[in-house]
């Protein structure tokens, strides 16, 4: 099985001949959890109905509804990185919409469902708007205050909501057994529960899920791959509200009644704690969390209602102290720790393009034209009237001391920071005022000084996000063979096993796979061994000669620059002091003293 840990020998062997097998969609842990989760839901639904235990039917249905709401809150938290302490308001809005539609106005339940989901989406939009500006616990507090205000508003608009009296929703036909003793409500709840748990397992492996995780882990990296972090957040809020809304509409028929007191802050906290206590990102996690925080206290403390919050707070506190990754997360981690440590085999770049392919003729024209660009941060002038031209199909080295403006120049070039003056052209097109993700879509890929390899994604997914984001219309020149062997190497590898130097290389490969025709590499060779540097230099030359790419790279290793660069630009205090072919720049009297000091620094 691919998901099993193989020895490094196996991996090396696999690297020589790609297996051609696709990776399984889910890793082993997610598959097992998904199966167990579905079994638990099915058994928990069928057994009480078969025995005709009305009390248990109700409490299990409600628990599954809470599991669904928690799963979608967890999707928001884990996949999109958005903290919502107010998910109870989304849930409550859906439940109340059903109550108002069916209980007060006598509409049918299907119509109620439509209103309920719409109400949940409205609250979702209200939550998503501040999320465009603020993040993390600031967003948590905004949503928290919304959850606090929600029941108050139910009181305030009592003509619409019946205020303190609440609304009773008699829907007996939903609770009547229709199939094997199961009621329509139980069947709907079970189906929704299974759909939710399957979503939580599969979503991270979808294109959208990968993009969301990248946007959450590093908005900059997301933009450089053409992804809009704001749009990802908005979509995440919509998905989460939709799912939570579906859970919320099942609440009134299950309980038979809605009242403002049912949708206090406690409900939002329950959803949040269920995810954390169970284990973030674990498909079984919310089932464990809801069982521990809701089901068990309700069953065993049925007579001691006032002790429930104490048990509930104490359980959450103790789990965080003893198992910070949550219960399921802790078990999974314990099992992973017992696995053998992995060694990543060296990456082979020899087959990055098919050997049959002949060298491309070098393309004509300029890839990048920077004219009189200036960028100041406060009183610090990072780039001072830089003019620089990079020809198509050229490897251009950008050298200079720390703080000389190299990275700032890359940032202006790919749209991360807006220049104060001057123009930037990419392939003849003015991109001065474009945003990073628009520049990316013109075929400009980039890597970062600190490699953006994300532990939230599997090793292969970290590279696959490059394949996901096709930045230019160029036909893919990277060989299938290379991609296949890369997938075989990375498939079984855990992300945390990737050594630091290899992370940079993987990031470079990710950008190559986007089919960008201009690569901006920020210190790509830092942390590589001398042999790896030789291989890397060969890779850069291959990219130029066989893929026809234009490469601008910032590098401190002057030997490497001399070995591969066609031309070099030297920056000093934000100004270009020399630019041209390597030999002439190296012998420039202005440059020489700089390098001596650099080399001995």
């Amino acid at each position: 099985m691919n998901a099993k840990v193989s020895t490094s020998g196996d991996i090396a062997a696999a690297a020589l001949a790609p297996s051609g097998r696709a990776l399984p969609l889910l890793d082993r842990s997610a598959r097992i959890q998904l199966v167990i989760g579905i079994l638990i839901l099915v058994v928990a639904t069928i057994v009480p109905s078969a025995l005709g235990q009305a009390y248990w039917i109700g409490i299990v249905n409600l628990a599954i509804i809470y599991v669904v709401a928690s799963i979608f809150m967890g999707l928001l938290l884990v996949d999109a990185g958005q903290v919502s302490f107010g998910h109870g308001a989304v849930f409550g809005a859906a439940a109340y919409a059903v109550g108002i539609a069916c209980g007060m106005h006598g509409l049918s339940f299907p119509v109620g469902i439509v209103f309920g989901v719409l109400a949940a989406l409205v609250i979702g939009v209200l939550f998503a708007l501040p999320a465009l500006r603020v993040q993390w616990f600031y967003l948590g507090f905004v949503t928290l205050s919304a959850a606090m205000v929600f029941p108050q508003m139910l009181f305030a608009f009592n003509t619409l909501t019946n205020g303190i009296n609440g609304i009773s929703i008699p829907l007996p036909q939903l609770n009547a057994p229709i199939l094997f003793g199961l009621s329509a409500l139980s069947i709907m709840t079970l189906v929704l529960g299974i759909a939710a748990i399957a979503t939580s397992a599969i979503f991270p492996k979808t294109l959208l899920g990968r993009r969301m995780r990248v946007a959450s882990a590093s908005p900059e990296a997301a933009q450089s791959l053409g992804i809009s972090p704001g749009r990802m957040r908005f979509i995440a809020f919509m998905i989460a509200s939709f799912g939570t809304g579906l859970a919320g509409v099942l609440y009134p028929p299950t309980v038979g009644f809605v009242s403002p007191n049912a949708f206090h802050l406690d409900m939002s906290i329950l959803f949040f704690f269920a995810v954390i206590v169970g284990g973030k990102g674990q498909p079984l996690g919310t089932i464990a969390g809801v069982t521990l925080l809701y089901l068990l206290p309700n069953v065993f403390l049925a007579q001691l209602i006032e002790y429930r919050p104490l048990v509930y707070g104490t359980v959450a506190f103790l789990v965080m102290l003893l198992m910070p990754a949550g219960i399921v997360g802790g078990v999974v981690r314990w099992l992973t720790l017992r696995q053998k440590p992995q060694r990543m085999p060296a990456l082979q770049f020899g087959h990055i393009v098919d050997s049959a392919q002949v060298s491309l003729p070098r393309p004509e024209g300029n890839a990048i034209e920077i004219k009189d660009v200036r960028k100041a941060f406060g009183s610090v002038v990072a780039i001072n009237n830089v003019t620089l031209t990079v020809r198509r199909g050229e490897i251009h080295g950008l050298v200079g001391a720390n703080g000389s403006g190299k990275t700032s120049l890359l940032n202006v070039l790919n749209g991360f920071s807006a220049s104060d003056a001057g123009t930037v052209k990419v392939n003849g097109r003015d991109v001065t005022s474009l945003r990073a993700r628009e520049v990316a879509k013109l075929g400009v890929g980039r890597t970062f000084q600190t490699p953006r390899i994300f532990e939230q994604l599997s090793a292969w997914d970290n590279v696959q996000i490059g394949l996901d984001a096709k930045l230019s219309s160029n036909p893919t020149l990277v060989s299938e063979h290379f991609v296949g062997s890369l997938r075989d190497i990375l498939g079984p590898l855990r992300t945390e096993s990737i050594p630091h130097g290899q992370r940079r290389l993987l990031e470079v490969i990710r950008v190559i796979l986007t089919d960008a025709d201009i690569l901006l590499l920020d210190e790509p060779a830092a942390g590589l061994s001398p042999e790896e540097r030789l291989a890397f230099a060969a890779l850069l030359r291959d990219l130029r000669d066989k893929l026809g790419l234009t490469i601008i790279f910032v590098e401190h290793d002057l030997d490497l620059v001399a070995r591969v660069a066609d031309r070099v630009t030297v920056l000093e205090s934000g100004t270009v002091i020399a630019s041209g072919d390597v030999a002439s720049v190296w012998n420039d009297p202005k440059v020489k003293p700089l390098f001596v000091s650099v080399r001995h620094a």
Partner: protein
Amino acid sequence: MWQEYAIILVRGIGLGSVYALIAMSFNIVKVSSGILNFAQGNMFVLGGMMAYGFVAFFGQPSLGVWILLIPVAAIVIAVLLTIQGYLTMLPLSYSDDQQSWLITTMAVSIIIGAILLLVQGPNALMVRSIFANIPVFGMRVPAPFLMAIGLALFWYVVLQWFLSKTLTGLAISALWQDPVAGRAAGLKVRRLQLLAFGISGLIVGSAGFVSAPIITLASDSAVAYVLNGFVALVIGGVASNTGALIAGPLVGVAAMLATFKLGGEFQGLVSMLILVTILLIRPEGIFGSTAARRV
């Protein structure tokens, strides 16, 4: 007519001073450890409960005893908060998940609220002030409103002096700038963070005790104080005590206005709208100096 506004203003500033005190207590913990202690609201309520407990057991205290009881309440809450701080930071030292405090501080808040519910039930406790009402603009204002203002000014001056003039205070400020560099420079980071938790306890303990007659002392009232304290913190700018001192009364007056003009159930909505507006327009806060900090 103007008298109504005058009373809204005085009471709003008094209540707002309580929010300012809570915001300052948030600040010192946030500065030292990056933690926003959710349990601060219930610790504040506990301080008020101590005033109630004393009256319940010993009757109304004399002025001298009352003044002596302020530091006692402050120290008791400080000890509780130091213990809480120790427990909160435990998982931070052995887990790579550095966000567990979000859950643990919230859990502690729930635990305190649950214990209060078990001990004294769901109703709010009333504490009678030992002071007569004080005439302001021809109206009689309960003295604790004015004393809360005094206490906020007192803690502001003490904190500013402590953080900028003493070596320990400067060390705590340094942790906000760069905790790693602070550790490298030999600061005993954990000890400073515990001290900050303790100081935050002194602030909320004394604040709860002094303002007991004018606040809601119930098992579920803490969240409102946490939220309003947080709104004051955001408006003032994180880590700025000056901002907190000015923003607290602004929030208090707005809350009072909402209560008088729209009704009590809209107070939370007004606080939330202020919070959202500030975060959308100026996330670093009106008095915040950390303009470049991402939130």
